[in-house]
């Protein structure tokens, strides 16, 4: 699949805009997921994911074919999302009443619309709880943790996506995981 995507990117580079649609549909859920887990709001996540793809398209000539496209794309997406988080008022994500509200809304909507069995609802509650806890992490830990668990990226890939030394990646994962441990251990 990576090879097929490489081919598509070559076509896009030559100016074939339509070939980009295949690139988008291949990576859309991954990118959306990264944005959502970091920003905690489905609408903003969609907006950010869309923006990430548009930026990737506009800057496609600067993408080095010898590198992994996903790394480059995730970097655009995480940078955009971190920028967005920084532009928000800091108390937006620190305020326990506000943070993760959209995530909760989405899960409760899913739960009521589809009348899921009890254990599914419990799982959804757990899901929204985990999301809430991710949102409690400072952005620099959040991005590392999201990339580590969501796509199971290697430490090296994470260091490339975030453009930070691998040692820093390790430290942030350890600290982020410790922080989550304290919050999730009573679940």
């Amino acid at each position, binding site marked *: 699949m990576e090879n097929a995507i490489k081919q598509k990117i070559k076509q896009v580079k030559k*100016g074939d805009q339509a070939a980009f649609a295949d690139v988008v549909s291949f990576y859309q859920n991954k990118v959306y997921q990264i944005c959502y887990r970091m920003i905690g709001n489905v609408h903003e996540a969609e907006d950010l994911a869309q923006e990430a793809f548009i930026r990737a398209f506009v800057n496609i000539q600067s993408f080095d074919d010898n590198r992994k496209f996903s790394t480059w794309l995730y970097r655009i997406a995480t940078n955009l999302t971190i920028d967005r988080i920084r532009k928000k008022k800091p108390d937006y994500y620190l305020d326990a009443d506000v943070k993760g509200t959209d995530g909760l809304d989405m899960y409760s909507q899913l739960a009521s619309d589809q009348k899921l069995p009890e254990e599914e609802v419990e799982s959804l509650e757990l899901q929204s709880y985990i999301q809430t806890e991710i949102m409690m992490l400072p952005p620099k830990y959040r991005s590392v943790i999201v990339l580590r668990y969501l796509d199971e990226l290697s430490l090296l890939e994470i260091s490339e996506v975030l453009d930070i030394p691998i040692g820093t990646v390790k430290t942030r994962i350890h600290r982020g995981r410790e922080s989550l441990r304290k919050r999730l251990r009573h679940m």
Partner: protein
Amino acid sequence: MACNKEAIKLMHQYLDDELSTDDKSKLQAHLKSCTSCQQHYQELKKTNTYMKSMDQINVPHDFTRNVMNNLPKEPKRVGYKRWMKTHPIVTAAAIFFVLMFAGLSSVWNGNSQLTVSKQKDLVIENNTVTVPEGVTVDGDLVVKNGDLIIEGTVKGDVVLINGKLISDQKSSDPYLAAAIGGELKQIDQIFDWVWYNIKKSINDVFSFKVNTIYTLHALV
């Protein structure tokens, strides 16, 4: 082993698959003997499991379309190129008609000079072609950008492009049925001109008689 630092660091490294075999056995040995580290390790494993159980959330179904609609417009050239690649037959036909139309219209517009197909024995003056009395044109007669007076005879068809047949003073009938053996075709619209040429080329290709083509035209 210092529980709060070294052991915990090893736990995280273990969870990240970063632990050497030596360190692994070191950690295992410590966990066996230290309940507080055991507890800590169990909690970390639980956290790991929770994090890995996060649901995949899918984008709305129209996501790709929205992205594509919001991309800056590509240069037209490429759009045509790709379209031509995917529709080779339509493209070939389109190119054929465009070139032919362009060619014909340049003939039509670019040359307003009077031209006539059979020069011999015809009188040309003041944008008017005259077939003098006693003169017989054996084949077809095509006059472009000029009027035509027939005092003699044309055995074939008469085609007038951007011009008209001037009635003989001696006769009130401008079409002088007796004087023209074939049909009279007047063309003053560019589409007629193109149509005439298409028929003419078909005629040339299939060696039909002009009369047959006009019959075809009538059928069309």
